[in-house]
């Protein structure tokens, strides 16, 4: 009898709570406009904290506007895809490198905004279309090379200035491996780092005419075979971390931070994460050697950028908010929190430990900045294929190169046909 009463009480409580929940759904205010902003940031990240501080100041200055900053999870990309597909589009969202190629048809062009005159020209190839339009406010500019631990290289007697070819890189890696350190750290568990290996190398594996062929919808397989052959050679020489299969992106940062790895093919956020584990980690980055014997290059483009939905009911307010973020004082704080080069030219860079690499490699403009290979030369959806085929080579070596190239060619043809 008593247990039955308990059940009834529990059930009634649940229903009451559920109804209370229904009643307290957000966004019921009519007088204020509320902007939903999908930030793409983890809930306790430094970047989100700075963004929150700036947003509060904006809200105080603009009492009629509330900005609902939403943190994200690692499934952010799928989340945005689902929302775009179903028509429930946030007012503002983080475009994670895809403001032009993937999201431009959903976003408002921003080139006529007052702050747009300070748009960093280095971002133009990645963010501007042929009409000079761009679709997101760039917080920073992504300039990536190969991240390295300076202390590990010094202890192995390797000079970073000598790493201008893949042969020199291979020899240096073998020298480092001889000291008992796994030279290259890669996460096989996360859906990305393995693909980065191929992405970084492929940009320098194709000639201009071959890149043009890719752009016109024909997969050129010989250069990609060279890319995977190089990775297979590293596998043969045991140059990857032995825990590749189970390692997470976090493990890559930890390995760099603790000197258990020398190199990482990754964006500079990995260096930022490493510094959270070991603030004294001595890190830098160097340009990626070219497989065709050309000049080493840096890879870059859009990183943290925020676009405004074309269908937003609060377009004017959203633009006002973005303009507020673009103010030099605010943009400086955000670019510093991101640890990258600012996306606007009137903002002062503060790159922390990576400042030295920036000053010696990026600032003089000696090395070309090429776009991410997959974003520009492969059809949408190829990233997963790139990750899985590279993964098969990192784990299986030369035996999987031919199959990897064949899979790339098939998926390229299939996905390219879908986009036409």
């Amino acid at each position, binding site marked *: 009898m008593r247990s039955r009463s308990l059940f009834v009480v*529990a*059930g009634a*409580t*649940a*229903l009451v*709570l*559920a109804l209370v*929940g*229904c009643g*307290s*759904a*957000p966004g019921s205010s009519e007088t204020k406009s509320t902007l939903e902003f*999908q930030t*793409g*940031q*983890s*809930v*306790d*990240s430094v*970047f989100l904290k700075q963004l929150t501080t700036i947003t509060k100041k904006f809200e105080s200055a603009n009492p009629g506007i509330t900005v*609902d900053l*939403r*943190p*994200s*999870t*690692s*499934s*952010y*990309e*799928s*989340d945005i895809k*689902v*929302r775009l*597909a*179903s*028509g*429930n589009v946030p007012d503002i969202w983080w475009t*994670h490198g895809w403001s032009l190629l993937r999201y431009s048809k959903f976003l408002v062009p921003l080139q006529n905004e007052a702050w747009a005159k300070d748009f960093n020209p280095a971002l133009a190839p990645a963010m501007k279309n042929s009409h000079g339009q761009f679709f997101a406010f760039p917080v920073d500019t992504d300039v990536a090379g190969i991240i390295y631990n300076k202390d590990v290289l010094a202890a192995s007697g390797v000079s970073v200035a000598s790493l201008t070819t893949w042969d020199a890189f291979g020899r240096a890696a073998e020298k480092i491996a001889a000291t008992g350190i796994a030279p290259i750290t890669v996460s096989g568990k996360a859906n*990305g780092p393995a693909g980065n290996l191929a992405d970084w190398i492929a940009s320098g594996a194709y000639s201009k005419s071959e890149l043009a062929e890719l752009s016109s919808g024909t997969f050129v397989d010989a250069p990609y075979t060279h890319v995977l052959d190089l990775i297979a050679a590293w596998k043969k020489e045991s140059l990857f971390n032995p825990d590749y299969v189970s390692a997470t*992106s*976090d493990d890559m940062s*930890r390995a760099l*931070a*603790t000197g258990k790895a020398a190199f990482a093919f990754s964006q500079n*956020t990995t260096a*930022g*994460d490493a510094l*959270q*584990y*070991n*603030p004294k980690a001595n890190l830098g980055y160097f340009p990626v050697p070219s497989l065709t014997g050309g000049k080493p290059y840096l890879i870059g483009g859009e990183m943290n950028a925020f676009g405004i939905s074309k269908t937003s009911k609060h377009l004017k307010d959203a633009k006002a908010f973005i303009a507020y973020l673009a103010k030099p004082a605010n943009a400086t704080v955000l670019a510093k929190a991101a640890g990258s080069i600012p996306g606007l030219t009137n903002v002062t860079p503060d790159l922390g430990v990576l400042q030295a690499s920036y000053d010696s490699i990026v600032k003089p403009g000696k090395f070309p900045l090429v776009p991410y290979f997959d974003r520009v030369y492969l059809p949408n959806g190829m990233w997963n294929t790139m990750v899985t085929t590279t993964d098969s080579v990192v784990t299986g070596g030369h035996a999987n190169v031919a199959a990897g190239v064949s899979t790339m060619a098939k998926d390229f043809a299939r996905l390219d046909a879908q986009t036409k």
Partner: protein
Amino acid sequence: MSRTRTDAGRRTGRAAIGAALLAVILLQLLPFYVALTTALKSRTDLSSQWLLPIGDLFWGNFATAIRDGGILRAIGNSAVVTVAATAIVCVLGALAAYPLARRRTTLNKAVLLGIIGLIMIPPLSILVPLYSMLNRLGAINTYWGIILVMATTQLPLAIFLYSSFMRSLPIAVEEAAVMDGANLLQVLFLVIFPMLKPVTATVVILAGVAIWNDYALSVYVLTDPQVKTIAPAIGAFFSTQSSNLGAAAAASLMGFLPVLVAYLFLQRYFIRGIVAGSER
């Protein structure tokens, strides 16, 4: 002599079973141990995850989980969603199962097979149409929206379990109730439902735990921190650019405490329910 040998054999057998059980317990506790060592260390403590922190314990991860991750609010949200959705699953599951178990017509058999077939549909394969429908209904980021989604995903299994259990109940009891003048609803509520306690416990465990832990759908339906449940709230410590394992581990430990407490209080029913479920 032979008896002594048999006794020795029994003792050895028991010792082997004991050792095997101990190994299973250790294996089960291992993830909690690693979560604990991770949660009690600061980011700059780079000692092995297998080792407890040397020196002072670091409670900052728990503070981060509560302050930044809003994990206490997420636990409350999960409690609301789990209790409400599980209650709906039990009531609707039992009601739907009764005619399917008692009227074994060809149509009913086909309906039951169809319902069982629904168990095999991966939730993510229906994500876009489901999300679009919820969006049109205004159900995104609401308790009632996620409660309906969770109840719907768990109902097929509940109907299957209830119908299997009901088929094993003696029909004579219902006939006796009818003879005594009970109508169909009275038979259902006063005779059948009280006999469903063991299978209800099984359904509560299976559905309740699945709803409490759900990430696959909740992460899409609940993006507002005010209504987020535990799993998406923990997931918010991971993004494509950064992650905080320590705070996520602390949040996970806090998230499983309510389930642990519930289990400690209700373990009698749970064990009975699991045994009853396995007999069917």
